[in-house]
């Protein structure tokens, strides 16, 4: 461990650098990219982001950091959402519809998740509703490291921002529910067999 003073002073600069980059870019940027731009490790970037986040809160600033899927961006503080809402001309379509709400909840609480798993939990084909959520920018899809033919779906920063939270684990009961579901699954022996069955027609 280095002297505390030295390491904090280095991090303070780093968090200012990150703030400037995020501010200037005004779009989601990955931790990896930040590490390369600031010529440091992802580990240090994570620490600096946590520090920035804390400092923005402590100083009652008007902006906040939001995180999802190893990406970060800046947004307006939740305390100011009413003010900005009055200024924006865009009417937010708050109604997600029943299928949208159901699918979104599954992706928020269980993501990253494959479409086959979403179908399995809902008991119906989710192809069109997933496409609709992708188009609306509420979920994103990425490669599935375990299976090249399928994708994983996860909440976007946009969705996190719409929910007024800065990280997905701020959702109510997030950890409890995730653990519960893992327990349900392990209680059923060999449930993967069942998921495989719903894998057919997986081409989204």
């Amino acid at each position, binding site marked *: 461990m280095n002297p505390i003073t030295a390491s904090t002073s280095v991090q303070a600069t780093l968090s200012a650098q990150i703030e400037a980059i995020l*501010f*200037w*870019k*005004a*779009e989601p940027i990955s931790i990896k990219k930040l590490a390369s731009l600031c010529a440091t490790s992802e580990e240090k970037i994570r620490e600096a982001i946590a520090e920035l986040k804390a400092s923005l809160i402590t100083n009652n600033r008007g902006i906040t950091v*939001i995180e999802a899927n190893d990406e970060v*961006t*800046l*947004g*307006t*503080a*939740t305390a100011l*959402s*009413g003010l*900005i*809402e009055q200024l*924006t001309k865009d009417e*937010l379509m*708050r109604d*997600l519809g*029943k*299928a949208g*709400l*159901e699918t*979104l*909840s*599954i992706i*928020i*609480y*269980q993501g990253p998740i494959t479409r086959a798993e979403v179908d399995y*939990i*809902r*008991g*119906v*084909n989710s*192809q069109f509703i997933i*496409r609709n959520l992708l188009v609306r920018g509420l979920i994103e899809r990425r490669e599935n490291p375990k299976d090249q033919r399928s994708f994983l779906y996860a909440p976007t920063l*946009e969705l*996190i*921002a*719409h*929910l*007024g*939270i*800065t990280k997905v684990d701020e*959702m*109510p*009961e997030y950890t409890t*529910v995730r653990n*519960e*579901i893992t327990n*349900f*699954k392990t*209680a*059923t*022996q060999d*449930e993967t*067999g*069942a998921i495989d069955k719903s894998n057919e*027609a997986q081409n989204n």
Partner: protein
Amino acid sequence: MSFTIKTQVFEGPLDLLLSLVEKRKLFINDIALSKVADDYVEHVKQLGHFPIEDSANFILIASTLLLIKSKSLLPALTLTEDEQQGIQDLETRLKIYQRMKDMSVHVKRMYGESVIYTPTQARPATVVFSPHPSMTSASLLHAIRDIIRNLPKKEVIPKAVIRKVLNLEEVIVSLTERVTAGLRMSFREFTKAHKEEKVNVIVSFLAMLELVKQGVIQVNQEGSFGDIHMETGEVGVPRYT
């Protein structure tokens, strides 16, 4: 029988099943599932027109439910490993689905309530024409061709096939005919003609149970591994118990 639930729109078979379980204030387990099996079948019949591929999902779950119910009625009935697994899976799915339904209340409440806004536009930067070398007519044509190829198409399941496999009514009619003609036949024999798919066995079984329920035929099983024999009861004089 409830008629209030009928007007509701269900997102899928699990949505329907969960609402039936919750309506009776039951915990999700095999006892609860056997209790709501009849309600479920009744509702599926009333739902009528859903897309053919969804109806397959509804009917598959109906068959699992009736399996659970018949096991509770005929404890001697031996279930295969697959069937046992199917029952456990259904319970798990329903439990997960229930938790997701609970959580969707939070999502609904929070979505759009206090939005974190991101900038409406990029920071003012001088526009400098900077094409990337990869942007050529050929690569752009290639890109748009890719997009066209990946435009979504409906996942079409041939209607004729599904109809043949999963039409409950037809199975019931055929079973009724053969039972009334032959008076006594085994369930195993009946399913022989349809053995390609497990689904067929279940649907046949389901149809049989439907007939049992309507009092058209009676079932007896000789020993736990024995065949189930069906014979006509008082045809045309339904008995309700």
